[in-house]
């Protein structure tokens, strides 16, 4: 691309600091959307909420009844203080279910989950998911109050939206 000639301002004339700005170019709309659109472009997943004193057995029952892969553990201020996921069940519960089924979620959950802001870009949220190995990321506002949840399934649905409608397997 030919570089634009920059006109030198006259003495005392206002100089626009962005006069040389050239917007980033992307190969396609999908790349642009991932890098520039914020996480709200992906509809939030429905999510289950629980208090930290819920028992492990009740949380598993809740996940099974609602067909959800995780429960967000909330404090009284509506902040996400932990996540109890299928992976936690596999790693920390399955082997000795009888011993842990009556324990509180706070003993077993993954505490202080990595979160995203609703103003973060999709790229950042994907980065968080891949780097941390998370399938779900809670989305919070500036006061760390839970706004919603972004999961891998919704992200895949978002990617698929960019394919032609007539693309068939």
């Amino acid at each position, binding site marked *: 691309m030919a570089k634009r000639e920059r006109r030198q301002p006259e003495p005392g004339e206002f100089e626009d600091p962005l006069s040389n700005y050239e917007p980033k170019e992307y190969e396609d709309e999908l790349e642009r959307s991932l890098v520039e659109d914020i996480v709200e472009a992906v509809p939030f997943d429905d999510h289950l909420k629980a208090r930290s004193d819920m028992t492990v057995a009740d949380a598993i029952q809740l996940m099974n009844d609602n067909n959800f892969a995780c429960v967000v553990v909330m404090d009284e201020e509506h902040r996400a203080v932990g996540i109890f996921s299928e992976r936690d069940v596999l790693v920390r519960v399955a082997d000795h279910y009888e011993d842990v089924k009556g324990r509180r979620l706070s003993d077993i959950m993954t505490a202080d989950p990595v979160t995203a802001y609703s103003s973060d870009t999709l790229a950042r949220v994907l*980065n968080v998911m891949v780097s941390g190995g998370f399938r779900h990321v809670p989305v919070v506002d500036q006061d760390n109050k839970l706004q919603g949840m972004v999961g891998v399934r919704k992200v895949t649905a978002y990617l698929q939206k960019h394919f032609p409608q007539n693309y068939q397997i």
Partner: protein
Amino acid sequence: MGLKDNIYHDTVGDLSLRKLVTVSPDDTVERACALMRQARLGAAIAIDDAGRPVGMFNEKLLIRLLAEQPGAMGEPVRNHMTVNVVTVKKSHSIAKLINIMRQRQYRWVCVVDDKGVAVALTGLRGVMEYVVDHFPRSVKVEPIQSNISIDQREGA
């Protein structure tokens, strides 16, 4: 080529595939879970004597088992696995894989060779890793867990 074109042209073989966790349908659920835990993988593939996939046990089925039959961890996997194992080949496009997972609501897909023998596992996370690998450098280096609220961020 842009990311979208790459998704059409690159194949399942270009993804970072997971090494399979395989069990016999006669193995116990307990053993399947132990192998999944050891491999840090959310699914195990039950295979027949020829190595072809005949079932899958995953974390979702584990949740169901603990909620409905918590005493059944010692039972054979065949009693609790799903027998609808969706497969792809390494030569299939990533777009096709995404469509399969979306249309059938599957998180895991078994990769098979031309003889139908299970060779690897892929899924939603593999696709996400692929997408992240294609991000422009400026995005990829953004630190994770930089949870600084807008009013605390530096700059204008």
